[in-house]
């Protein structure tokens, strides 16, 4: 028969009842995620890690070089995740959730720190698992940048940051009911603050330039640089980051239960888990 095709699909560990896993993480994509995370730590934290006589310690180069490399890294991870099994149902569900995130983003523009995008990302990652969360984070940020014209050198960083948030939401321990909502609220607060912090850190030398007293000094003691960074954050984005963390946490607290219920119901309806295989006729 011509359509005879057997494709190995990793079964993965047994799941809690009702949790669909549209994007499976196999051994390959797991190792890719680990390497990408290690790379991402370097790319985000470069001001604290760079040695003063490194060629990229000064000027604009580091965020641009790391941004270009990050784009390739995210592309490779997405390719490996897709190769592990991402069918039309997963694509459609991701597309719709990314659309919701992208449509929510302009609502926050202009209001300090209100960025409702993250709450649908956290709930999506929670309902559909870490692999789905990763892809959802990366694609939501990309799609919303396309829609709002926010394409710039910061986009690869935002994509990886949001992808981490979705991944982390999928990796949270399995609890249900009120404890789940509380867990998600705590996660939302921490994740949003950390996101703002690392985004700021990687673009601090880039955005501010040298020669101010809160500027990045390559190779200075980590503590001194951190103090200056804290002062920079305090004067620029702390209000923004706190605003985002608070709104996202409140949104999660109010809506986690009904939204998760809707997502899980859709997951059951889509029936992601049964795998159709064609067995050749003998």
């Amino acid at each position, binding site marked *: 028969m011509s359509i005879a095709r057997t494709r190995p699909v990793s079964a993965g560990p047994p799941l809690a009842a009702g949790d669909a896993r549209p994007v499976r993480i196999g051994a390959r994509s797991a190792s890719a995620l680990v390497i990408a995370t290690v790379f991402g730590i370097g790319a985000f934290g470069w001001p604290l890690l760079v040695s003063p006589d490194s060629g990229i310690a000064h000027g*604009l180069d580091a965020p641009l*070089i790391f941004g270009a490399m990050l784009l390739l890294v995210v592309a490779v991870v997405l390719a490996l995740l897709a190769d592990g099994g991402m069918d039309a149902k997963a694509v459609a569900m991701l*597309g719709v959730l990314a659309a919701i995130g992208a449509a929510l983003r302009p609502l926050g523009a202009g209001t300090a720190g209100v960025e409702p995008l993250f709450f649908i990302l956290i709930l999506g990652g929670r309902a559909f698992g870490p692999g789905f969360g990763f892809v959802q984070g990366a694609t939501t940020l990309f799609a919303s940048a396309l829609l709002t014209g926010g394409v710039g050198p910061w986009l690869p960083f935002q994509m990886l940051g949001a992808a981490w948030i979705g991944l982390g939401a999928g990796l949270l321990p399995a609890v249900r009911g009120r404890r789940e909502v509380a867990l998600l609220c705590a996660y939302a607060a921490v994740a949003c603050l950390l996101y703002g912090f690392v985004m700021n850190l990687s673009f601090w030398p880039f955005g501010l330039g040298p020669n101010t007293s809160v500027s990045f000094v390559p190779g200075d003691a980590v503590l001194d640089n951190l103090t200056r960074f804290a002062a920079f954050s305090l004067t620029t984005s702390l209000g923004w980051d706190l605003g985002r963390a608070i709104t996202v946490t409140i949104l999660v607290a109010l809506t986690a239960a009904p939204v998760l219920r809707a997502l899980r119901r859709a997951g059951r309806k889509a029936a992601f888990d049964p795998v159709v295989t064609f067995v050749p006729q003998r």
Partner: protein
Amino acid sequence: MSSTGARLLGARLPTHPMAWWIWALGLAAAASRTTNPFLLLLIVAAAAFVVVARRPLTTWARGFRAYLIFGLVVVAIRTVFHIVLGGGYGETVLVWLPEIMLPEWSAGIRIGGAVTAEGLASAVYDGMRLATLLVCVGAAVTLADPRRLLKSLPGALYEAGLVVVVAVSMAPALIESAVHVRRARQLRGTSARGSRAFRSIAMPVLDQALGRAVALAAAMDARGYGRVGSLTVGARRTSAALLLAGLLGLCLAGYGLLDAATPGSVTVPALVVGVAASVIGLVIGSRRMVRSRYRPDRFDLRSALVALCGLAVAALFFLTELSGLAISHPSTFPLDWPQLALIPLIGIAIAALPGVASTPIEPPPELTQGPLVPNLLAQGVLESEVGVGHRVADRVRVR
């Protein structure tokens, strides 16, 4: 130009989006190699000239002004930061601001104090460089709709690209759906506010959207979207191994760049191997997708010319920086008047060249003439495959 020449240069084909991106990134690379304010202004002028001459006639292409304004904001922010938190760079004092003393642990942070001409110049130059970079990216976004770039993605990223296309085409529908639900509520005379309004508006919209996703999946499945082609187990393993090796190489190169103690003989090969393995892995992985493309973008001679212009500008600016630092980086301490030189000016002329040499934009055909669908196709309204897909999906109901 003779008609043969025009045909040879592919006069009919629109410039490939990738060519615009290469051109713009070349300009951005050139801008990152200089802090000369005149050169930076000239780069912005060249980019703006090309944008005005060649921007497509879509609503999408109106965003260039926003990037220009954003650039000005960046320069302003930098200047304000320098004035308020300046680090006492330079000696020509313009103004003394009242200074606030901070305790010892504040790592030398200073608020207020002397504002110097040298410091201001360096802040403005540096801010202008960043602003120019943003304007270059804005030019690329304006000239080449990133949604068209998605069509040229390698097959290995097909699903991720498809997700973005679905998201971009569905986001407006969601807002429309929210408006419908709200109107329905108003007609029923309910006017709850706060969290109640959320439940009664957002939840139906979410449920509708999720239902739409399931229907879209069925429609796509029925038409063979996301179908995996015939890639042997060996080829899949090779692709995955190359991708993982590429990731490792990139990771190694990244940390090599950070640490000056790592010899270049480790970093450079790691970077080259990392990029090469990733790209080859993506290419091999792309073969698992069997798909045909509707109206593919072609990279013709004119597109190649546009891309080459960008690369040439970058090369000329690198050359200028290597040969004479005073032109690329005018001294701010002591403060000198920035000079210009022939080589970067040639670079600027080349940067503006695509404004006349690339394919002109054709006005879209009038909607009222001829049948609707071919017109929409010609305008690219019906171009995205998924756009057609979910119109179909709307009619498919899954039980």
